[in-house]
């Protein structure tokens, strides 16, 4: 059954376009999506998932599982980096361990989107408020990463600017992608509350176009991920194992938490995917500026070159069957 789910997932247009990008690099085709076009798609996707999430949030309201689920998601983004940090310290210094840990505590919006598309293709219901969880898991992970650096490594940093709590918060909360996601969520919510016609008029842009734009962006992600892959080899086998096993471990944590929250299968999968995915955008951007001692090739080649492809290709279907096994659905 897992194999079947994996096959179905692999044969969906987004994943096929991801492969197309990957193979282009492997075959050394000169296919390229020049900057800043990928930025256009990433901004668009953030705006659209935020806006759609806001609309759904208005529909569901703040009743039921919303607050506990979002709270649990934030908790996971605080706990996961700590676990990762302990494991990574076996091999790496404080700076690199903290930076990689923060990336794995945070999330990947594109993995989330791919999981949503997967659920839609399986006609499994999920709630819009999960986008809020998505948006709120990025900052805590960054904060934990920076605090770990502040606590564990104050003396090793010669000639460095002192890191202030204010700037840690700033870096973590006002990061462009976090900001756009949260802002669009709020706008979607406000529009749905006050201006139903506005929701209707946004629909062709944020709704209809989404799937195609996702495919286009995944084509680029395939190119970018494949370009990062060779560097992973340099990073060594410890990191390679980490990049595959850690998401699976985090997924387990996520399933247990989802069970505790008694989430439905759709929300449970999204929750698990949030735990299992790692950030290759917001967190690396923040780490590069605040922990310049960490090697960006470590935290980017693992998250983008391995964890991301693993999650979208085989991870999502595996997590789905895990959810199906551990969380009994009321029939």
């Amino acid at each position: 059954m897992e194999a079947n789910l994996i096959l179905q997932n692999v044969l969906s247009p987004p994943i096929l376009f991801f492969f197309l990008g990957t193979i282009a690099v492997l075959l050394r085709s000169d296919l390229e999506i020049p900057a800043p076009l990928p930025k256009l798609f990433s901004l668009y996707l953030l705006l659209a998932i935020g806006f759609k999430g806001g609309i759904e949030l208005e529909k569901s309201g703040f009743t039921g599982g919303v607050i506990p689920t979002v709270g649990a998601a934030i908790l996971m983004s605080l706990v996961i980096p700590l676990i990762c940090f302990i494991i990574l310290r076996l091999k790496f210094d404080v700076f690199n361990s903290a930076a990689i840990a923060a990336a794995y505590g945070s999330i990947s919006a594109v993995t989330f989107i791919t999981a949503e598309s997967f659920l839609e293709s399986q006609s499994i219901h999920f709630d819009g408020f999960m986008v809020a969880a998505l948006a709120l898991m990025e900052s805590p992970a960054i904060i934990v990463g920076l605090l770990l650096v502040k606590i564990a490594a104050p003396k090793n940093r010669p000639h460095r600017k002192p890191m202030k709590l204010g700037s840690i918060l700033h870096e973590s909360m006002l990061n462009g992608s976090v900001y756009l996601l949260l802002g669009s969520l709020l706008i979607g919510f406000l529009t749905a509350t006050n201006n139903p016609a506005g929701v209707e008029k946004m629909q062709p842009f944020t709704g209809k176009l989404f799937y195609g734009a996702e495919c286009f962006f995944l084509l680029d992600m395939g190119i970018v991920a494949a370009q990062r892959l060779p560097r992973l080899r340099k990073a060594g086998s410890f990191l390679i194992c980490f990049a595959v096993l850690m998401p699976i471990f985090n997924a387990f944590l996520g399933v247990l938490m989802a069970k505790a929250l008694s989430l439905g299968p759709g929300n449970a999968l999204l929750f698990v995917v949030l735990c299992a995915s790692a950030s290759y955008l917001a967190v690396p951007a923040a780490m590069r500026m605040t922990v310049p001692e960490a090697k960006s090739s470590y935290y980017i080649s693992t998250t983008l070159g391995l964890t991301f492809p693993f999650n979208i290709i085989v991870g999502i279907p595996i997590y789905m069957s895990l959810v199906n096994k551990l969380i009994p659905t009321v029939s």
Partner: protein
Amino acid sequence: MKRLDLIFSERELDAVLTALENAKAPGYTVMKHATGRGPERVVTEDMEFTGFGSNAHVIVFCEQEIIDQIRENIKSTLSYYGGVAYVSEAIPL
């Protein structure tokens, strides 16, 4: 006249331009979207794909005194976040 070439993370652009203004630079030119590799960090190329993390290349044509003033303000930024700064000779056309 001198020519100053500064290459550093786009994120630091505001700080650097303010430093140039404070040093009374007569003008400057900014080119964004530069990528690259430095001695320690394989940073920028890795992150260009999302628009985060690319470098800015700033060119300033000015007198030696201004160079001297720029130096102090800018060196700390470059040493913390990385980047390079080189001076060469230039004659107005």
